[in-house]
């Protein structure tokens, strides 16, 4: 797919798909490498995108009640889709079947399409002329859109866009995305603080902007 257009070989593209098997992280890694990021900043961004899978795992381990010996094998299939299907099932038996069927079929299909996409991209040559460089951001947008349910998510997204674009010219490749990740704790912290000050310390809040504003007026 897009990775073949970013300088990865066919083997590297397929290994990434087989070993990582969580779509957003794969695209993020490829994008960061294509932009000239170091392998470690690229991997860090991809890793943070994969952290949500741990929370799917938490819900699934209670639901599926897998034997300990099976868990290391089941883990690779803990992704958005299998979690969504399994958590929607009414019984443990159907949840287990749902997890197995979704995991197996997605794993096979995903890796087959990766292979075909990589072969196809090699055959096409200039992927930019076909607009394939727009596929990466479109995939991210499609993954992001269902997450923007409340104002908090939109605020985080907006702040992350500003940080990601604003810092791009000044920081090494791959680093601005990691800095943009701080939009999440920053918004949570600001909200927690607002709730805290709302209870009785409103004076400090009204003072804060004034104190911050003085030096600017002096300049």
């Amino acid at each position, binding site marked *: 797919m897009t990775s073949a257009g970013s300088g990865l070989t066919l083997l590297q593209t397929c290994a990434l798909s087989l070993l990582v098997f969580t779509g957003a992280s794969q695209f993020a890694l490829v994008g960061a490498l294509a932009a000239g990021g170091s392998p470690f900043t690229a991997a860090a961004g991809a890793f943070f995108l994969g952290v949500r899978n741990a929370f799917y795992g938490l819900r699934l*381990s209670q639901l599926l009640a897998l034997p300990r010996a099976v868990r290391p094998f089941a883990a690779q299939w803990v992704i958005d889709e299998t979690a969504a299907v399994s958590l929607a099932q009414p019984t443990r038996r159907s949840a287990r079947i749902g997890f197995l069927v979704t995991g197996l079929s997605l794993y096979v299909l995903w890796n087959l399409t990766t292979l075909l996409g990589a072969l196809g991209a090699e055959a096409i040559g200039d992927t930019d002329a076909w607009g394939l460089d727009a596929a990466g951001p479109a995939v991210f947008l499609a993954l992001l859109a269902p997450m923007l349910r409340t104002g908090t998510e939109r605020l985080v997204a907006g702040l992350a866009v500003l940080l990601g674009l604003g810092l791009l010219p000044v920081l090494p490749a791959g680093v601005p995305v990691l800095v943009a990740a701080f*939009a999440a704790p920053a918004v949570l912290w600001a909200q927690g603080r607002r709730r805290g000050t709302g209870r009785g310390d409103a004076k400090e809040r009204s003072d804060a902007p004034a104190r911050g504003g003085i030096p600017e007026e002096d300049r």
Partner: protein
Amino acid sequence: MNIWIAIGVTALGCYAVKLAGLLVPAGALERPLVRRLAALLPVALLAALTAQQTFADGRTLVLDARAVGLAAAAVALMLRAPFLVVVGAAVAVTAGVRALGG
């Protein structure tokens, strides 16, 4: 070689968090703040990545055919189009704008 390092580190890290979710006792990660943060981290990362891959050319910001393609994808998302249609719309519109000399 660098790419193999990146693939290896990412694969290990992503597998480790998947496995951790299955193995860790429920209480350890069930704190509300941790859950909120885990839900918001992908939002921040995806938003930043979307913006960068749309408007960045190396380390400079540009406005080119990709922005039009992304707008098409956004429209497709609002119409609740399936995933492949959304991506296809972005690719087709970007290629179309480039073909017209944009």
